């Protein structure tokens, strides 16, 4: 078991050496976090996780891009209804090819104000992901060029991935199914 761990570690060192990333990890992270006042690093063991105020999402996207995170890999959301005081959480994944590093940014979004700044001006690739979050959770992205439903039909009522959107709320068209 111990040998395995040592092997993994040496492989990681070799990887870092091969990728000529001259900046140590914490410098990169500091460059992301420093310009944003509300940013707080909350986990670094396996994943680097940063928590920000929802108003600062656009700001941390800019600072992440300037710090060398070329790609915004993923934008999604979680509904913590009944688990946490603030109901939603927007989750953004940035990736840096030059530093070979990922950063995950979390921002809590309360139920009564589900508008967050859009990342599309900084990372155009978040366009589809933000539309998906809007479609599934009803979280609006301010500044998004085309915030419409993407997976569900345009006239759909409700947001399917919210916890209170119950499975089976839409009647099924099999008549026999109800005659048990």
């Amino acid at each position, binding site marked *: 078991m111990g040998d395995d761990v040592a092997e993994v570690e040496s492989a990681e060192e070799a*990887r870092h050496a091969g990728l000529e990333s001259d900046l140590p990890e914490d410098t990169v992270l500091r460059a992301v976090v420093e310009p944003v006042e509300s940013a707080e690093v909350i986990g670094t063991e396996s994943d680097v996780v940063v928590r920000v105020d929802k108003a600062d999402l656009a700001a941390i996207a800019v600072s992440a891009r300037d710090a060398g995170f070329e790609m915004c890999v993923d934008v*999604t959301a979680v509904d913590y209804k009944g*688990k946490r005081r603030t109901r939603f959480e927007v989750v953004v994944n940035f990736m840096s090819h030059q530093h*070979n590093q990922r950063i995950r940014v979390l921002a809590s979004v309360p139920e009564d104000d589900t508008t967050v700044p859009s990342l599309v001006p900084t*990372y*155009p690739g*978040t366009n589809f992901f933000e539309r998906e979050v809007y479609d599934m959770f009803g979280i609006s992205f301010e500044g998004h060029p085309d915030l419409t439903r993407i997976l569900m039909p345009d006239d759909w009522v409700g947001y399917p991935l919210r916890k209170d959107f119950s499975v089976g709320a839409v009647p099924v068209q099999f008549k026999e199914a109800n005659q048990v």
Partner: protein
Amino acid sequence: MADEKTTSDLWVAGTEEPDWIVAGTDEGAQVMDRDETEGRLTEQRGTRVVDDFVIDDSVADDERMIVNMGPQHPSTHGVLRLSLELEGETVRRVKPIIGYLHTGMEKMAESLTFLQGGTNVTRMDYLAPLHNELCFSLAVEKLVNIELPPRAHAIRVLMTELNRVSSHLVATATNGMDIGALSIMMYGFRERELILQFFEKTTGLRMNHNYIRPGGVAADLPEGWEDDVAEIVARIRSAMDDYEDLLKENSIWKGRTQGVGIITKAECLAYGITGPTLRATGSDWDLRKSQPYSGIEQYDFDVISGTNCDVYDRYRVRIGEMLESLRIVEQVANSMPGGDYMTDDRKVAPPPRRRINESMEALIHHFKIYTEGFRVPEGEVYVAVESPRGELGCYIVSDGGSTPLRMHTRAPSFANLQALPVMMADSLIADAVASIASLDPVMGDVDR
């Protein structure tokens, strides 16, 4: 009479367009966006358009029209619909419209236990089901924090790399078919059959395997697997020579693919595009090298990159990746460690079959694991693997129960579709199918 044209249903070309022309037809809206500012148009046409085709400025306005391609078009690889704004033969703008295959898998995942989750995710990207299972399993294992026996890792690498070959075979085959090279389509599917037969022998199914599960793999490799794998590797290697004869220097193929569907590295990064499309721009980004998983770093392989950012280079990258995957498969087969194929952590893995016959406790344990599932500690985790289409990520949030609070899949095809407007804007409509095929979108992965 000419004064009445505002109320007339007729419109004369060259005159000002009345409102009803752009408002809508029974085929849908005749504008593509609510907000059609110049900035929006620039964005839709890509941050920097580099393409082969120069548009003739003399195209008249009345040649501009919006045409729907799909969702039933044969070369959209499923139910993809593209709204194309055409000026004569030139594609001015493209808007992908998706959702026709949306089945709510992320919602369904919230009511399936972590053990059942594999049956769900394997149906997303149906051409690379094992990668989906691997990604999901790695995420669950990271949350539970269990170690896997080396044989489980090796089997996973063997199976996913074979899956990469079969997926790239389909990609190359259908890419050829869309452009009119029908022989490669027959050849590609013929060799894919070899791999699917091996999958069937190992997992019981040709697709949707649910073979890679949290804790290891569902079953050991079948008897005589060494010979099967050796035969697959040998036959696909020799078939690859045929593919090279068919396409590599084929002047029609090169004419249809070279300089077509260009997307630069900067655009790929901005739009979150990964996989062969990114590597065809000269990047050597491959998660198997940069953020390795399942011990894939111990095998010797190269990352294949292109230079010209076009459809031809994407095809070359896929051919190269197949050969590299076969190299990995060979190495795994030659160094397959012995031992168990499933972790012996009884919290996650059911007891072995023989124990159930001997022990009542084992039977109860078996029953409990398959009905209630196992509990996963509270936390959130994001794990990514290199699927044939790019970065496949799985984000799982657990609240400490036996089902995830949220399971999100970062689908590579979903993100890669955003490349279409960049690739196709200001190019010929005949090149559209080549561009779509070179992205290799799987609609199950896009819509989930």
